[in-house]
Each structure stands twice: as C-alpha cells, then as structure tokens.
C-alpha cells in the first residue's frame, strides 16, 4: 500500500499569511516570580508572545487570513471552505470559522468549521483543505492554525505557551506559490498532553511527552514521507518542525540528518514561544518568506494525543510576485513590546475574582 497522500488534482498554497501579537513576556519574568530566578540558565526560550487583551484566536486568524488573501489575490467569495485549527477557540460551541468567514466576506457559499488536535490542528486543517481542493469539491480553501495557548501559572509550560499562527489558501497548482508534492500523517493514541473539557489549563506527562510523543511521531511521519517520495534530507532547502522549545526541534533535525542551517529560517520559538497550532505553520511561513523558486520545503507538525503531519512543497516562481504584498513573518517576530508578569497576569485572566 502506498502511504503517501496526493490529491487527484495537483494542489498547492496560493497565498499565506502570518500573525503574531506584539506583546512579549520574557521568560525571566516567570522565572523571577515562580523560581526566584534560580533556573535562569536553563530557560527553554528567551520570551513568548502574548495576545493583547482584545485579541483571541478569531481576531488573530482574521489578520493572518487577510495577509494570505492579499498574497493569493483571490476573491473571498470563491473560497469554499474555511477551517480554523486551534486548541483555544473562544467558544466551546460556536465555530470560529463562521466569524472569520463573515468578516472576510467568504459567506455564505462555504463549508466552515473548527479543528482541534492540540498543536497540529492547523496542519490537520491544511490536510483537509488540500483534499477539498485536490478532489475538485472547490477551487480554494482556507486553512488556519492559530492559538492563544495558556500555561498554568508556575508550570513549566507557562514559559512557552504563546500566541500566533498562520493562514494558508490552498488552490490549484497552476496558481500556487508552493506546490504540494505529497503529504503523510502518522497518528496513535498517546496521552502525552491533554486538557479536559471545562478546564483552563492542560496537563502533561513531563518526560513522557518527549521520546514517546514528539520524537516518535515526527520521526515516523518524516521518514515515511521521505521514503515514499524517494527523498533524502539534503533534497530540502529548509525543514520546519513543531517547536515547543528550542531543544526539541534541534534534536529532531539532528536525528533526521538535517543541518542547523536547514532549520534556521523556520525556528522562531526562542523569540515568540510555542504558538501551539500556530507553531509549525508560522515557522513554515517564515521559510516561505525566504524561499527561492525551485526550493523544496518540509513541514512537520506535532500534536499531542498524538500525531504528526508531514508535507513536502516545491516553491514556484510566483512566490517572488506575492511575497511583499503582506507583512512577512519576521516583521511580526520583530514587532515587539515587552510586558511584565503583572500585565500578563491581568490580560490573560490569571487573576480570578470569585
């Protein structure tokens, strides 16, 4: 059996857009409050992005999607599917996708809904959008990976749980800035990290989340993808892995024989934190921002629970025409205003009054 997934109609990314809120919480703020600064030499990242008090997954999805639309040049009315992947949808019941569709002018001729698969909800939406366009059900589909992740105060995850993400308009290969060569998904039931219904903060299995979850799933997804497409690491100009911290994606790249240079463009976690469903896709938009026509790019997400989506894209000439039509990913990475823990605690509703 062939494991690779390829749509009947050749499909690709015709527009992409990033969004990261402007506020940053330095890891030292968390360290000083909860550990007296004693772990300052072992911090997982320098700082993380924090959404403004008036931002959420819906508002951030809109800006990323507007950037994607600017690059795609598509009439919003021609988009026939809108899928938002997130673990922080503002509503438990009521889709984020309908608000996004209404605001972008995509309604009413569209399917729309939300995906949840921890940090791979965004790439899950991309798989679905590819299938939708690739099967000919519609010409264009919008897939978004976006989160405003919350870590329990004082928990190891608080250092990294961040906000941001990216949007992709999938469409026919002829219009693409990056054509999909093939994709593959590897999924098992692995309870490495979860959040029960009605709970604000997730639980995680500490070391269990490493080898058995993150490394295992990405390894299998990426090696299968490469085997099936008959590719080797050196065939890729850049590779982007899910990035919960700086250490994991670096180790993963090494295990898979990718060089540090090959993961350089997409490794943003040190400056913005782990944006969950937004993390690998933001890394990927950063790689697209720098890619040359003909480059082959690898995108490999990881979602707890657990699974990994791996994609191989080949960049086209069109990238040069559309790149400057919206702010690039590094613009949002560099746009920053540092805040202290007090402001973060107020904005992120860490202070509970009841």
């Amino acid at each position, binding site marked *: 059996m062939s494991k690779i997934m390829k749509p009947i109609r050749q499909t690709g990314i015709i527009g992409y857009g990033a969004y990261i809120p402007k506020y940053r919480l330095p890891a030292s703020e968390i360290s000083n409050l909860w550990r007296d600064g004693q772990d300052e030499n072992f911090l997982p990242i320098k700082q993380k992005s924090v959404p403004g008090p*008036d931002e959420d997954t*819906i508002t951030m999805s809109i800006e990323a999607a507007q950037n994607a639309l600017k690059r795609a040049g598509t009439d919003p009315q021609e988009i026939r599917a809108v899928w938002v992947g997130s673990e922080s949808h503002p509503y438990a019941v009521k889709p984020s996708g309908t608000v996004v569709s209404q*605001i972008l002018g995509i309604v009413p001729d569209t399917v729309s809904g939300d995906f949840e698969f921890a940090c791979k909800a965004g790439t899950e939406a991309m798989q679905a959008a590819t299938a939708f366009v690739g099967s000919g059900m519609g010409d264009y589909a919008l897939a978004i990976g976006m989160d405003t992740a919350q870590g329990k105060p004082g928990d190891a995850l608080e250092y990294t749980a961040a906000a941001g993400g990216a949007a992709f308009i999938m469409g026919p290969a002829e219009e693409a800035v990056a054509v999909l060569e093939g994709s593959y998904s590897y999924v098992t039931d692995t309870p490495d990290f979860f959040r029960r219904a009605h709970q604000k903060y997730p639980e995680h299995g500490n070391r269990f989340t490493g080898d058995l979850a993150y490394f295992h799933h990405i390894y299998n997804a990426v090696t299968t993808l490469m085997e099936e497409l008959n590719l080797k690491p050196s065939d890729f100009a850049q590779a982007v892995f899910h990035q919960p911290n700086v250490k994991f994606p670096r180790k993963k790249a090494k295990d898979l024989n990718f060089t540090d240079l090959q993961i350089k463009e997409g490794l943003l976690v040190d400056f913005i934190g782990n944006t969950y469903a937004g993390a690998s896709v933001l890394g990927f938009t950063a790689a697209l921002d720098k890619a040359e026509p003909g480059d082959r790019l690898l995108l490999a997400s990881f979602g707890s629970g657990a699974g990994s989506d791996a994609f191989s894209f080949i960049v086209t000439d069109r990238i040069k025409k559309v790149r400057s039509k919206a702010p690039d990913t590094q613009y949002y990475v560099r746009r920053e205003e540092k805040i202290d823990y007090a402001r973060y605690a107020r904005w992120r509703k860490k202070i509970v009054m009841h």
Partner: protein
Amino acid sequence: MDIPRYWRLRNQRYRLEGTECTECGEKSFPPRCVCAKCKSDSLQPFRFSGKGTIYSFSTIYQALDTFDKDIPYSIALVKLEEGPLITTQLADISPDEIKIKLPVEMVIRKIYEDGEHGPIQYGYKFRPVLNK
C-alpha cells in the same frame, strides 16, 4: 448590547460598511437612510477602506460599567481617507504614542465580552499602520 443588535450591525462592525449616495456621491458611516448632504434616498452600501488618521483621542480611566474591566483604554475620532469621521477604540498603542494626524488602520478585535457566559462581540478598532 444584546445579540439582535450585534447581529444586525455585523456588516458595519466587521466590514466598515456604510452608504454611498448614488445621486451626489456622499459617503457616510454609519449607513444613512437618507443622504445627509442631498437628501436623496437612493443609497447603496459602501465599504470603507479602513485607513485614516487620528482626528482626536482620549484615554479612558473611568468607563461605562460594561467596559470597566478594560480600563485604561484609548479611543479616537478617526478621519477616514474617504472623508467621514468614525468613533473607535484604539488597539496596540500606549497613551503617550497617540497623536492627532497619526496614520491608523482598521483591525478586528474583541469589543465586548458579555461575562463568562454571554456572547463575544467583535468589531473594528484602529491601530497605528504597520510599517512593514
């Protein structure tokens, strides 16, 4: 503001949809029933670009009860590039950065959250133009 009004206003709040007079070309936000200039009732929807400059501003330290949890927040009258003024909250700006004539652009943000149980209302705010 309860759900029916929020729902009815969604094209204004989400997409800055006003009216344009087919007789004299006058553009209005909010949408008008009769042209404010030539009194014609032949109006069509007009979507504003969402670009403008600050005409006046304030930072709120004592708010309506419904917005009390958001203080301090900043508001402005923004002169839209098509002409009309619009009343709006500002986003991603600290009080000392706000100046009359500052170029701003529309973004979608949460305007109001009706407690823990009610709906979340989204709509336009304006922020300093991104200089990418």
